[in-house]
């Protein structure tokens, strides 16, 4: 690993301003992804701004919403009694991600900013438009078993690896950020972006902006929820396909529903069309299958990941069935 300078920020203000002066400086919190990327020479900052001393670790239940500090640990959120009770989908998704050691280290903000695990992105001997713009995409025509079936481009077919983010997309979360130009809010589903011609940009976060917290509005998805994660081993692996489901049922009729997928796109993939279709319907295998078919509209595979075109709808049906039966 290239050596670097490290400084500790004591307020969000100073964190942002100390980054502002540098061209190749980055924030560091849990470090579970960044340190790994630095070891692989995929990231090589001259300076790290350690933000772990900032007062951004609290989980606060306010009127109509919960605010989760960007530095709250993944395990802290996953095991919070009130989160489990009021936002169980988030707790389930977090518990499905990484290992307990990593969840103890990784923060909510860092989870959102983790990079893709595409093997071409990680291997500096390979072309990758995300790592080196205009160098080509090794995954198109290469090994692409883990890769996207929605929203990909000729530049990049990588997927966002987070489980937590799939639940946050489903739950209509908002991201609160602070930067050189002040504070602003970003709708969670607008936070991550599709690759287009600029896959080097994972998010809509502006240069030098710092995530300070996320907010989730209260909802009624407290009982019939499920996070289904399909992976190569039963724990501690990234999703081939995952599905987050929240159902609000009234006598077997779907009053409200949230559906999002992971492992299928450059961002958490919200299934709004399928949601609209399901609203007002009575739960049945046929209805779930129709919703899954709608969700898969526009899906496209790249060879090794052809199986996702079948696994995807099956996972949606399974997740809906499990959520409905809870």
């Amino acid at each position, binding site marked *: 690993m290239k050596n670097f*300078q*490290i400084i500790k920020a004591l307020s969000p203000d100073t964190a942002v301003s100390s980054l502002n002066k540098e061209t190749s400086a980055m924030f560091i919190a849990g470090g579970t992804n960044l*340190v790994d990327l630095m070891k*692989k020479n995929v990231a090589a900052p001259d300076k790290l701004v350690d933000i772990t001393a900032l007062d951004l670790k609290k989980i606060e239940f306010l009127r109509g919403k919960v605010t989760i500090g960007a530095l709250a640990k993944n395990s802290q959120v996953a095991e919070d009694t009130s989160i489990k009770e009021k936002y169980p989908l988030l707790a389930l998704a977090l518990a499905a991600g990484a*290992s307990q*050691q990593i969840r103890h280290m990784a923060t909510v903000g860092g989870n959102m900013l983790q990079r893709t695990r595409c093997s071409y992105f990680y291997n500096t001997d390979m072309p990758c438009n995300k790592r080196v713009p205009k160098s080509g995409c090794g995954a198109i025509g290469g090994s692409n078993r883990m890769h996207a079936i929605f929203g990909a481009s000729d530049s990049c077919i990588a997927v966002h690896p987070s489980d937590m983010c799939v639940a946050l997309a489903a739950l209509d979360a908002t991201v609160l950020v602070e930067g050189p130009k002040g504070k602003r809010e970003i709708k969670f589903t607008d936070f991550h972006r599709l690759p287009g011609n600029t896959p080097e940009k994972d998010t809509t976060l502006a240069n030098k902006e710092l995530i300070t917290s996320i907010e989730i509005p209260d909802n009624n998805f407290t009982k019939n929820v499920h996070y289904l994660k399909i992976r190569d081993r039963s724990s501690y692996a990234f999703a081939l396909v995952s599905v987050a489901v929240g159902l609000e049922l009234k006598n077997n009729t779907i009053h409200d529903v949230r559906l999002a997928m992971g492992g299928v796109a450059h961002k958490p993939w919200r299934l709004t069309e399928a949601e609209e279709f399901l609203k007002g319907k009575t739960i049945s295998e046929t209805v779930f299958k129709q919703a899954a078919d709608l969700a898969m509209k526009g899906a496209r595979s790249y060879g090794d990941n052809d199986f996702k075109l079948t696994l995807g709808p099956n996972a949606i049906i399974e997740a809906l069935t499990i959520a409905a039966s809870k």
Partner: protein
Amino acid sequence: MAAKKTNPNKAAADELNSRRDFIKKSGLFTALALTPPSLVMASENKWDEKIAEYLETVPLSIEVNGTKHNLNVEPRTTLLDLLREQLQLTGTKKGCDHGQCGACTVHVNGTRILSCLSLASMQQNAQVTTIEGLSKGKKLHPMQEAFIKNDGFQCGYCTPGQIMSGIACIKEGHANSREEIREYMSGNICRCGAYHNIVDAITEVKEGGMLS
């Protein structure tokens, strides 16, 4: 050959410090004496300071297994490398070095974490417990005893990480069934496949109430 009893890290740090001073001073002298255009540019970009920063170490106070250490570390040194290379605590193992195997699991302020993905320079005043810190004199920790009794290992390389993780698994309240133990121990890979016996060992310690 007899091992020399010098501290290689202190020597390295001294060397770095003197090199840094040299670069800083020589940069300044040349810039003042000659100031040709190229050096003026270099001076404006603060290259001499930038080079000095690369060679810099940061002071670190850290407590490991009850012993306080005041050290100088490069910002890029991981907690794992600090333990193994600077403190000669080689019980904590380097497996994958990328957070995928759990062999490097240690407790920091009572929580299990991966030392290979932790920068030592970010562990100011931390209290670290490694496998070496578990026994009381010659009396092994109950989890160590249980691993021996249940054959919780074959080659033993992942064992320090498994034991540190197993203790945490019980303390966190995630050892209530074999399934739960497997899920919450999934960050510790055993290539010999001793998983069944590892779960036996953790279950035995949990049921024996030996950590309460």
